[in-house]
């Protein structure tokens, strides 16, 4: 039996190594994806351009502009002279954020009166606008605090923020676990469902079925190479995260790998389940993309937080394995917790895996239809 299994795995390795497209998906995609998430898709920004409409043009207003620039986040694009110029800038799309400092800024401020600084942002790109406005108002507040300290106002509430486990709010801390979840899903689930569907498509499944091979062995022989490869990929992503994007691994590495392995099994079960329902590779591809990739990307809390979604989507998100896997990964990698603190998520994942394996086994056909 072991000889048969080995022959199967060897055959599968030949398929993988001889098909450049498969190789590219297996190793090109994980690396490309993590680099894209790492360098391009980020909520942080440096040197954003902003326009200043300084109506006051006095001592204090100049200091404020200076303060905004010295923060390292903003660079002044141009100084605007009129409201029309302001509007034109937004319409042309060259202005993303404008700061309007009112007349008599210095005098009002030194008299202890409230002064309003207006921030205008281009709301057609809401995420960007939000972030820009937030950064700018934090800096302006800081400026105000500094000035206030020079006066003798005894009543002050100061807010001090500290982001635990990710003090710089580096988005790498979020996307490395998310990318691992996605990549393992793509390789384990999509690739295995594709390779099983391929045997059906080219007709070799007929020959394999009319042979003494137990169906379970066919499946195991087909998924084992992909399980190994996805595991290698998980380690590759962890290494890239650790060395290039400084994502820490605070918890126990063995527990981490153990959970990765569990998730690989979950994904494999999903993949084989998909393959039992699809006759062609295209069919399998559509099912894995629509049924696995999209929800895992959008509803797992990887990109958008689950808690702010409508109830229906929250429920959908809670039946996606990736949701729990990402939660566990973040716990172990970033917060450095032991397995006992994420035991609930691990148990859910184990339960899902058992359920999926059962479904696969029940749906696996010993005949063609």
């Amino acid at each position, binding site marked *: 039996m072991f000889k048969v299994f080995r022959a199967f795995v060897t055959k599968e390795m030949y398929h993988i190594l001889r098909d450049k497209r498969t190789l590219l998906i297996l190793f090109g995609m994980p690396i490309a994806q993590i680099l894209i998430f790492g360098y391009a898709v980020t909520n942080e920004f440096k040197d954003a351009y902003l326009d200043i409409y300084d109506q006051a043009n006095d001592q204090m207003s100049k200091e404020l502009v200076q303060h905004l620039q010295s923060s390292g986040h903003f660079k002044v694009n141009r100084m605007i002279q009129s409201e029309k110029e302001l509007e034109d800038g937004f319409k042309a799309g060259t202005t993303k954020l404008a700061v309007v400092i009112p007349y008599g800024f210095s005098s009002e401020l030194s008299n202890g009166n409230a002064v309003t600084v207006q921030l205008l942002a281009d709301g057609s790109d809401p995420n960007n606008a939000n972030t820009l406005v937030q950064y700018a108002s934090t800096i302006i507040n800081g400026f105000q605090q500094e000035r206030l300290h020079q006066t003798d106002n005894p009543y002050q509430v100061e807010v001090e923020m500290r982001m635990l486990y990710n003090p710089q709010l580096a988005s790498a801390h979020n996307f490395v676990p998310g990318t691992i979840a996605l990549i393992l899903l793509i390789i384990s689930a999509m690739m295995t469902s594709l390779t099983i569907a391929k045997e059906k498509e080219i007709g*070799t499944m007929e*020959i394999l079925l009319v042979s003494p091979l137990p169906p379970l062995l066919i499946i195991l022989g087909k998924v084992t190479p992909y399980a190994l490869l996805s595991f290698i990929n998980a380690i590759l992503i962890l290494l890239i995260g650790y060395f290039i994007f400084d994502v820490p691994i605070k918890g126990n590495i063995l527990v981490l790998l153990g959970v990765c392995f569990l998730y690989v099994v979950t994904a494999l079960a999903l993949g084989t389940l998909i393959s039992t329902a699809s006759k062609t590779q295209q069919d399998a591809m559509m099912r894995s993309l629509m049924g696995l990739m999209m929800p895992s990307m959008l509803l797992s809390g990887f990109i958008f937080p689950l808690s702010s979604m409508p109830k229906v989507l929250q429920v959908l998100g809670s039946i996606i394995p990736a949701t729990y896997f990402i939660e566990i990964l973040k716990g172990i990698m970033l917060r450095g917790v032991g397995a006992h603190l994420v035991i609930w998520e691990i148990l859910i994942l184990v339960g899902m895996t058992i359920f999926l394996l059962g479904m696969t086994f029940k749906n696996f056909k010993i005949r063609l239809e």
Partner: protein
Amino acid sequence: MPAILAKNISKNYGEIEALKDVSFQVNDGELFGLIGPDGAGKSTLFRVLTTLLLADKGTGEVVGHPIVSEYKEIRKKVGYMPGKFSLYQDLSVEENLRFFATIFGTTIEENYSLIKDIYIQIEPFRKRLAGNLSGGMKQKLALCCALIHKPKVLFLDEPTTGVDAVSRKEFWEMLQRLKEKGIAILVSTPYMDEAELCQRIALIQNGAILETNTPQNLKKSYGHPLYAVKSKDTYNLLKSLREAHYTRSVLPFGEFLHLSTNRPMEIEQIKNDLTRKGFPGIEVKKIEATVEDVFLELSETEALKTERP
């Protein structure tokens, strides 16, 4: 114990009746041909007998095992070559053969004597990927893979479709040799000329078996005088013959027309009649019926039966 036994097998795909009450038997060590056009139900019948599909009605046995309850036993003892070339195109000749030997729990070396005659022809290309082989070579490799575990029964679904004439001839010679080694073979083909190379044949059309017999007996059963007629203007000759009062049926066979008459006629009689109708250089000869003549005859009567029940 017959190698294959099919009893009243019916199979529907939704509205379409793929097999209608099919019964036949293949004896031990027999080369049995299933002859019929595309879409006659040959592949479906093969899949039912190789345990890949469940029949809606009827029973069957292969090497003494019922096809539904003892499907596992059957899968160990038969060799199956599907209609479509179904080997791994990205594996070499040798890798394919080794893989199939292993999954059947044997080795190439162990059963080499059985495939030697065939394998020797593709051995020079053993490092070549199966996808780069010619049609004939592919079929030889597929046959080797189906044979490597010394099956008791061989199911070959249209093994010569899409294969050149020389390779077809070679392939049938190989089947004759395998038959001599005691392997029962069920082979399907749409080519009527190949029917003559089988010990017994079943003619199948629209999911029903028209007749089962030896090719010789089948041909003898054709009870009408038959002539081959040739002229330069085949099309108009066909039209003219259809209207002749002595014609039972006339059908084109290559460059000849096969004319079946409703009474015995002299060759000169036909020749004169056609020359008078303005066909120069007429050639007429009396011929024995071929399997195709029988098949067309039978399918015509079958069609008439279904039209007027």
